[in-house]
């Protein structure tokens, strides 16, 4: 896989704040890459440096091999940037909006006309061509803003919180659109703190906090690594007494750090071990005559990962291969 977006030792210092503190990223071509982190983690700053809107205090940022600091003009021609707050120009029609940005890239008139039609079809706004931008719904505005990043057919899209403020349906539409763009060969870098969004969408993520990457790689890889240390939920059939006995059985296992009975009767286990070991735990419990109706990992989604990583429960590791 070719690396298309790369940052190395990226630092951005504001007076009194270190927004980005030595951030290393590697995004392979054709990926949908998620930058996850709490507010203030440095996601937007990183994207803005990549979009040539901020100058890094130190470090290197490259897009398609172009150093964004040394050669911002060339970088701007291979990237499309969508800021977190989408600005609407007053008194502008949908096609004029795209026409304006196409002119900014110096695209000639005949190509502009064709391209605007294609783009509006792509983002499903073909019927709104002559509507005013401020009259569109938020989801439509977001799609239009996404279309504006595509007027010059860039290789890389940098989208800052594209799903924020959208209703569920608009989110689904946006997700479909991003998949479509990926199919067209675009590399997409998305920042978000809405994790379920990214989990379904992204091929890779980087978990960022305090201006540094805490974990980076394919979602499945990170999960696998972090699964060593998960919360298991076990539903046991039987009386309260039997459930109490089952809890004691689990608690006696050295791999189980904690075992508590929840209000709904499930047993929650703090478990240290990988999938093999949890299978062993289950087999042992069944052999001991405990009637188990369900045995599952409580939270295996990004949100849990994210909380674990950012709260320091799991030591941050630089990268997953």
């Amino acid at each position, binding site marked *: 896989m070719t690396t298309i977006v790369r940052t190395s030792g990226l630092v951005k210092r504001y007076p009194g704040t270190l927004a980005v503190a030595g951030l290393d990223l590697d995004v392979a071509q054709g990926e949908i890459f998620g930058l996850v982190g709490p507010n203030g983690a440095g996601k937007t700053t990183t994207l803005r440096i990549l979009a040539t809107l901020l100058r890094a205090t130190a470090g290197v940022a490259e897009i398609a091999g172009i150093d964004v600091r040394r050669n911002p003009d060339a970088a701007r021609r291979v990237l499309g940037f969508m*800021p977190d707050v989408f600005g609407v120009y007053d008194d502008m029609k949908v096609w004029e909006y795209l026409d304006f940005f196409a002119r900014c890239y110096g695209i000639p008139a005949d190509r502009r006309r064709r391209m605007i039609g294609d783009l509006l079809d792509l983002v499903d706004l073909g019927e709104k061509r002559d509507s005013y931008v401020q009259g569109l719904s938020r989801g439509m505005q977001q799609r239009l803003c996404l279309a504006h990043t595509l007027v010059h057919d860039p290789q890389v899209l940098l989208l800052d919180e594209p799903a924020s403020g959208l209703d569920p349906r608009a989110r689904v539409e946006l997700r479909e659109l991003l998949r479509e763009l990926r199919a067209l060969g675009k590399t997409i870098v998305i920042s978000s703190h809405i994790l379920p969004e990214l989990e379904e969408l992204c091929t890779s993520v980087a978990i960022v906090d305090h201006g540094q990457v805490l974990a980076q790689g394919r979602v499945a890889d990170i999960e696998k690594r972090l699964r060593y240390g998960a919360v298991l939920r076990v539903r046991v059939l039987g009386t309260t007494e039997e459930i109490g006995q089952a809890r004691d059985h689990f608690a006696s296992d050295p791999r189980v750090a904690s075992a508590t009975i929840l209000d709904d009767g499930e047993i929650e286990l703090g478990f240290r071990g990988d999938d093999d070991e949890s299978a062993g735990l289950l087999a042992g419990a069944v052999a001991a005559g405990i009637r188990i109706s369900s045995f599952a990992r409580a939270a295996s989604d990004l949100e849990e990962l994210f909380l674990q990583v950012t709260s320091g429960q799991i030591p941050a590791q630089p990268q997953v291969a």
Partner: protein
Amino acid sequence: MAELTEIAADGSDSGIEIVELSTPAVATQATARRRPRPLRALRFGFSGIAAVGVKELRGRMRGRRAFVILTLYLLFLAAFAWAWQLIAVRTYENSGSLYGGSAAFAAALVGQEIFGALLIVETLLVVFLAPAFTAGAISMEREKQTLDMLAATPISSLAIVLGKLFSALTYVFILIIASIPLTAMVFVFGGVGPDEVLRGYVVLVVSAIGLGSMGLFISALMQRTQAATVVTFFGVMALTMGTIFVTLFWTKMAGVSPDQPVFRSSGIGPIKGRPPEQLLWFNPFAAEYDVICGASDGYGGWCARLAEVTNGAISIGIGGGATGGVPVTQVDQGFGAQPVPIDGRSIINDVSPVQPFGIRRDTFWPRSVVAWIVLSTVMILASVQLVTPTRRWRPGFLRRPFRKVAT
């Protein structure tokens, strides 16, 4: 030559280079090998200005509003010119004997009055509208967060600034140009030559660009449109009323008046002698008055008013002739102006060449125009600096103490 042919050969395309890359390695080589192409860059720069300009004008000129306003403005201006003509006729009809009773001379005086009145009203328009149209140009983009989207495209900051400036001024220019036929009405009366009309419009256009650049610069400097508008109007007030007040203060403190010799010993501290002309360079009214005064060859009410207000800061005097404090204006009986002998700073440094008719004219407004052009250039370049995202220079006192930390 090869370069030129090459540019001509791909003249059909956009004039820009879209870097099409298959692999990153190729990209690096391509950018490293690219030679500077000034013509292409220039063409792309112009297309950028056009992009911003077209966008702005689409918004501003949409619908009937702009044209209705233009029509109303012309109707108002025509009514005003007519009213002023009636006033001028009343003023001069009884004083014909002063000029040998010549009807032609009286008509010329009426023509000059109308010319002056129209130019001053148009100057008022420029002084209000040009900065008002530009004061929000950049800060509005910043407030709506569209400046970032714009800055992430290859369009240059200079193109953004110039596109904004000229699109904002286009409407002002349309108002100015539309008034030219109306102003040409003064030729019916006489007393004003086409060159004087041209001078008047040069001053108008340059003032519009200057005040527009000022609004744009303040807009680029401030974060909020409201603040930018307020500061811009304080600036406009300082340039118009402020400069006149300082001049007045100076002359009173220095104890000079246009018809008296200047004694260097009088005055307080550094305030000695006649006020410096530079004070009034950026006052569009002073420059327009100078043009109007020039049209009347140094005579007449407009010169008297100029001399009265500026107390000799602007040399509008009559070459050589003013040394003795010779009374030269006895014309104006209206508008509170007293018969005032006109005088440059001729008492102490009277080196004015004697020109045809003995008039030393057109000495002030060209300097004002040059000063405005220089100041506009400086402000445009400063605005470019402020708009460029990665080279943003901002004085410390305007920095917010707590910058929003980006997430």
